[in-house]
C-alpha cells in the first residue's frame, strides 16, 4: 500500500508522524511554516541572521516536543510561541536590553506616503512597543504572559501594546486614524 505523501497531509497529521520520528513529515512542516516563524522574529525586532538562528532552534525544539502538540491551535502558532519565547530568552541574556530600550525608545517618524506594509510600519515603533505588539498579535500571547516573559509590569505591557497599535494604525491607516484621532487616545 502506498503511503500518502507529506505534502497532502494536514499539519496535525504531519506533527503526529513527526512525533514518531518522521523527519520527512517534519520537513514539510518546516517548508510550510518556516517563513512565517522567521518573519515573526524579524517583526519582533531580531536581525535577519539572529531571527534565522532562533527560528532553526525553535523548529528543532518543536521536533523534539512534537508529541506535546495536540492540535488545539495551529501548528504555526505553536512554533511561533516557541520561537517568541526563545527570542525573549536570548534578549534577556543581554541583561540591560529591556531596561535600556525602555528608556531609549525610538521616536516614530511620520510617514506622509500613506499606506505601507506592516514591516515598514513596525519600524516606526519603539523596541518595547514593537516587541509587545508582535508578541501579542503575532505570537498570540496574552498580556500577562508577555509581562511574565519580559519581566515587566502588566500595566507597562498594556501601555506598550496600546501605544504600538495606535502608531501602527496611524501609519497603516493614516486617514482613518486622523479622523478618529481626537477620540481614540482618551483614557
Amino acid at each position, binding site marked *: 500500500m502506498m503511503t500518502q505523501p507529506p505534502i497532502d497531509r494536514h499539519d496535525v497529521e504531519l506533527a503526529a508522524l513527526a512525533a514518531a520520528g518522521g523527519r520527512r513529515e517534519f520537513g514539510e512542516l518546516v517548508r510550510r511554516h518556516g*517563513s512565517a516563524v522567521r518573519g515573526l522574529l524579524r517583526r519582533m525586532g531580531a536581525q535577519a541572521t539572529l531571527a534565522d538562528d532562533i527560528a*532553526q532552534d525553535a523548529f528543532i525544539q518543536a521536533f523534539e516536543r512534537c508529541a506535546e502538540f495536540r492540535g488545539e491551535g495551529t501548528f504555526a502558532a505553536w512554533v511561533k510561541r516557541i520561537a517568541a519565547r526563545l527570542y525573549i530568552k536570548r534578549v534577556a541574556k543581554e541583561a540591560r536590553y529591556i531596561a535600556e530600550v525602555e528608556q531609549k525608545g525610538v521616536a516614530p517618524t511620520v510617514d506622509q506616503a500613506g499606506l505601507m506594509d506592516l514591516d515598514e510600519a513596525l519600524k516606526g515603533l519603539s523596541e518595547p512597543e514593537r516587541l509587545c505588539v508582535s508578541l501579542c498579535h503575532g505570537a498570540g500571547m496574552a498580556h500577562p504572559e508577555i509581562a511574565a516573559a519580559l519581566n515587566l509590569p502588566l500595566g507597562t505591557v498594556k501601555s506598550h501594546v496600546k501605544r504600538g497599535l495606535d502608531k501602527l*494604525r496611524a501609519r497603516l491607516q493614516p486617514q482613518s486614524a486622523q479622523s478618529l484621532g481626537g477620540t481614540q487616545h482618551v483614557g
Partner: protein
Amino acid sequence: MSADEFDPEIERLFARTPLLRDAALFNAQVEQRLQKGSRVRVFALGLAGVIGGVVAIRETMSVNLGLAAGDGVVAGDALGQGIRSTSLDIQSTIQGGLDQFGLGNLELGSMGGMQLFWIAAGALIVLAAAGVMKLSQEM
C-alpha cells in the same frame, strides 16, 4: 477604523507570511541540524551501550558466575563440575577477547559488585533503547 476593528486587521497582517527568497536554504539547514542531532544521539547511545557491554562482561568475569569457588555444586558433583568447566571456558574466551583490545587488566576501582551490576544493567537498557529508537527511525 476604531481600535476594536483595527485589532483583527493587525492580526490578519501579522498572519500574512512574508515571502523570503532563501526559504529553501532555511529548510535545508533545519533538516541538516535534525540529521546531525540524530547522528549524535545514535553515537552517544551506541557508545553508552559499548561501555555498558564491556563493564557487563568484565563484571561477569570478576563474579565468575559465583561458581568458580565451588558454590555451584548443588545438585551433584558432576553437574557442578560441568557448569564450572563451562564457566571457565567462557571466562577464558572473554578474557582472550578483552586482552586483544587491551582491556584485560581493566580495573573498575572500588565499586562493589552490586553497583557494577546496576551500571551494567542500566547500560544494557540504554543499548536496547538505542536499538528500538534506531529501528523506529528506519521503519
